């Protein structure tokens, strides 16, 4: 398992949301502004990486019978640390994500990676797995946020970008974002729960379409190569 492979797996071929189809709740709930999406994505990335490293380092000492209980305690510990730090240093983010920060504890991505990957792999590989799976998750959140925000209220980068007095990034979540078209022409329904379900559904459908297409292409290439070889053989 090399790094390049892991990168590809995390972002595309084994993306936690689009392919493994776990960690749905937060994906649909908080993706209303870019600020929320990036904040949530990075929080999960940090927690996932820390948990992966700790669990992988302890993998030989953890008794098999109570491994899940220990995973949960480690995860809950890191989640609480991130929760407290967010409350202290980025209160706006902590406020707008609300109960979904502590709920990272039961996000299947983290416990799923602990069970499926870190138990069997060394610390280094687990570290990169955490980073790449976290990045894959963050990318999905960002795509969802951008799509919902743009189509729903005609904005880009809500909470994160402010253009009122020149372009600047606002880390306190107060920026109004860039208004691309007036919000009254947006499909406000995408901001509602309905929009979360639909956008994620469409996204996964596109992903499945793309994966299927690339698989077909590969099969076609393989068949052509085979035919070529057969032809050559016949010629010989």
């Amino acid at each position, binding site marked *: 398992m090399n790094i390049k492979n892991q990168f590809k797996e995390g972002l595309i071929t084994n993306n936690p949301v689009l392919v493994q189809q776990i960690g749905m709740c937060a994906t649909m709930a908080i993706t209303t502004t870019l600020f929320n999406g990036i904040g949530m994505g990075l929080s999960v990335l940090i927690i996932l990486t820390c948990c992966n490293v700790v669990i992988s380092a302890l993998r030989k000492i953890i008794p098999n019978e109570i491994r899940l209980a220990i995973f949960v305690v480690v995860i809950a510990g890191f989640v609480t640390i991130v929760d407290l730090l967010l409350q202290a*240093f980025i209160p706006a983010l902590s406020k707008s994500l609300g109960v979904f920060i502590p709920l990272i504890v039961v996000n299947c991505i983290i416990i799923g990676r602990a069970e499926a990957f870190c138990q069997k792999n060394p610390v280094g590989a687990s570290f990169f797995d955490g980073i790449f799976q976290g990045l894959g998750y963050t990318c999905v959140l960002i795509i969802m946020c951008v799509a919902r925000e743009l189509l729903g209220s005609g904005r880009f980068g809500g909470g994160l970008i402010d253009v009122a007095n020149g372009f600047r990034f606002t880390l306190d979540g107060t920026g109004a974002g860039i208004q691309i078209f007036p919000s009254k022409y947006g499909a406000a329904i995408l901001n509602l729960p309905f929009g979360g379900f639909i956008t994620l559904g469409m996204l996964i459908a596109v992903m499945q379409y793309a994966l299927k297409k690339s698989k077909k292409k590969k099969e076609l290439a393989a068949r052509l190569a085979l035919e070529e070889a057969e032809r050559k053989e016949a010629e010989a």
Partner: protein
Amino acid sequence: MNKIMKLALVLFLVCAVTAGILGVVNEITKDRIAEINRLATVAAYSAVLGADGYDTLDADTSAFPTVDKISLATNGAGHVVELTVPGAQGLITVAVGVAPDYTCTGISIISHSETSGLGANAAAQSEVGRSFREQFIGTDENVALTKSGGTIDALSGATITSNAVTTAVATAIRAVKAIG
């Protein structure tokens, strides 16, 4: 039996270490979080009623279950009422300033979980949000939305949120009247 004891010991140790680390992090962040929360409340209060200090009154508000607390401005500019009312998606906490003549001096939304782009506009620092909140300045306890015959224009697509805020303002003024 020995095996179980060993498992319990391992689990206990992991829990203890985690709790210890959390204790340290909590110790570091505790004061900052408390300060941030206090500043947020003060900012919300001074946005609705200009004063240099606020004393929380020990008034009986059992007739107004949505009222959390009523504070008196130290300079006699009036009262600030903090209420929590149900909105479209969850609870909305609002601070309402009430002048001595029982009119609203302004409102400020302390926390909410309304839909982004619709109900959340009530709290937003945008043009839409500000003009929505400024409508309440000078209103009395009979404040109502235009569709109920009042003067407040509801936020588009967010009647429930607008109605919740309007009810909160009316309740706040009645509560201040009730305690005199």
